[in-house]
């Protein structure tokens, strides 16, 4: 027989455990947010002073003559656009294949390869693209940079897409099949829309991830001191520009590196918000 007091003490214990756990998780969440806020705050503090209209629109100049990152911003946008145009459809297609038809041996090979590719250091991908594209073309190019970034994106996008599609309940597929929908229409009309916001989040993460990549661009897009939109020419990018400014011995350039970092973070945030806006749950 459990007495009244025993029941009470069990209830007390339960309440205590619950509040301890709530507090613990809240503290951890608080730390995560604080660290992020500190990083952003520090970058803003160091970078804000160097930001000006000229800085945002001009090309780099020799030390002491000012100059800016206009061409690097444009270059980064071109590279990200190119990488997304190649990498997102490719990655999503691989993910759809793995989730919807991925039972055979070939699929497990594909899955293994994408997993391995996720772990390959991005500089290796840079060297690889250097070998297969830059050397034959005899020149660094925006195209090579876009390909390198796309290769970094593909496995990330493929695996998140696969996982998001697997989360779509079988009952939804069956509902569509039972109405006389052929398999491909079930995939495109029911499964993909149901998984869309998850896939978009994965895509966004992949874009954010590659927008911070420097290593694969050093051997491919290389960098440039001029505005460029031609894909067969070397092109500047924020990350490479930050790298160049940061390794220099000049304080003025260090300040510019911070400012460029601030711009890069703002860019990533903007991508984030845009994608969220377009994929917010309408239904």
């Amino acid at each position, binding site marked *: 027989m459990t007495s009244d007091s025993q029941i009470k003490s069990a209830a007390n214990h339960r309440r205590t455990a619950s509040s301890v756990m709530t507090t613990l998780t809240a503290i951890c969440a608080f730390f995560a947010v604080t660290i992020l806020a500190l990083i952003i705050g520090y970058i803003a503090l160091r970078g804000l002073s160097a930001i000006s209209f000229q800085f945002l629109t001009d090309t780099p100049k020799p030390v002491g003559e000012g100059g800016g990152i206009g061409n690097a911003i444009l270059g980064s946008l071109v590279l990200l656009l190119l990488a997304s145009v190649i990498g997102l459809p490719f990655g999503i297609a691989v993910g759809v294949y793995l989730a919807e038809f991925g*039972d055979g041996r070939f699929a497990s090979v594909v899955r293994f390869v994408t997993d391995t590719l996720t772990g390959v250091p991005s500089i290796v991908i840079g060297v690889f693209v250097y070998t297969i594209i830059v050397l034959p073309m005899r020149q660094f190019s925006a195209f090579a940079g876009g390909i390198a970034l796309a290769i970094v994106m593909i496995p990330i996008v493929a695996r998140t897409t696969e996982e998001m599609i697997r989360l779509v*309940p*079988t*009952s*939804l*597929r*069956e*509902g*569509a*099949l*039972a*109405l*006389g*929908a*052929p398999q491909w*229409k079930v995939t495109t*009309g*029911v499964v993909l*829309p*149901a998984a869309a916001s998850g896939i978009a989040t994965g895509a966004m993460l992949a874009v954010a991830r590659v927008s911070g990549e420097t290593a694969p661009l050093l051997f491919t897009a290389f960098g440039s001191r001029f505005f460029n939109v031609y894909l067969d020419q070397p092109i500047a990018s924020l990350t490479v520009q930050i790298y160049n400014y940061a390794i220099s011995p000049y304080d003025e350039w260090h300040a510019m590196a911070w400012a460029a970092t601030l711009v890069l973070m703002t860019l990533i945030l903007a991508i984030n918000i845009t994608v969220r806006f377009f994929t917010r749950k309408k*239904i």
Partner: protein
Amino acid sequence: MATPTSTTAPVKPPTDAAQEEQTSALQDDGRERAAAKVSVRDLDFFYGRAQALHKISLDVSSQIVMAFIGPSGCGKSTFLRTLNRMNDTIPGTRVEGSVQIDGQDVYAPGTDVVELRRRVGMVFQKSNPFPKSIFDNVAYGLRINKLTSGKSELNDRVEEALTNAALWPEVKDRLKASALSLSGGQQQRLCIARALAVRPEVILMDEPASALDPMATQKIEELIVELKRQFTIIIVTHNMQQAARVSDKTAFFWLGKLVEVNSTERMFTNPNEKLTEDYITGRFG
């Protein structure tokens, strides 16, 4: 249609009398099978190695309601799903025997499964609305099969299906709202509407009323009786009264076997098998 005794006689094929006897008495007679809308012979079904259905033979003539009853796990859903080849989607399953619809072998190589499933509609045991708007859920089957020409016809068909499923008054002002914003019972009626919209010839309903309140249940039952003028309906139910109210014939399943098929009236008053009687009267170990 309040009591089983007042059930109107279905349009009987000539061989109906023979069918009222035991299933095992079914002859594999071409003429008899051709008369049936759905005709099953010696159907075995396996989930991997586990056999879920044993030598099922059954005829369902057109324009009747047949109820499947039996304890949980006896294979009612499995059997229902063999009729529109829904089990094809489960890996590792295997079917033996034959299922014919209008004399066409459903499992013959070259069967157009997509076309089959449009003709043989299904309402699932668990409601499964698409995460789309109410309207788009009902319009889905019409759109993919291109069954309507023009917007107004589509609107009409959607309204008709929703009305038939006793849902129209509740949703007519919020057709653009998400189907997931509906209550559980409303979602189930939406799934019924979705299946009705494509006007299938045979409708398989797996416990369509299990999540519905008595009012909605009554509407669905009235609908079923209404629908059988044009369609063939097979309904799984755990509710004996419901089986008695809506069906013309009843089939009793037990441990993956078809124990007895009979007219509903006979089934609930004087079944042939002791097992059936024990189950119906609730004397079941």
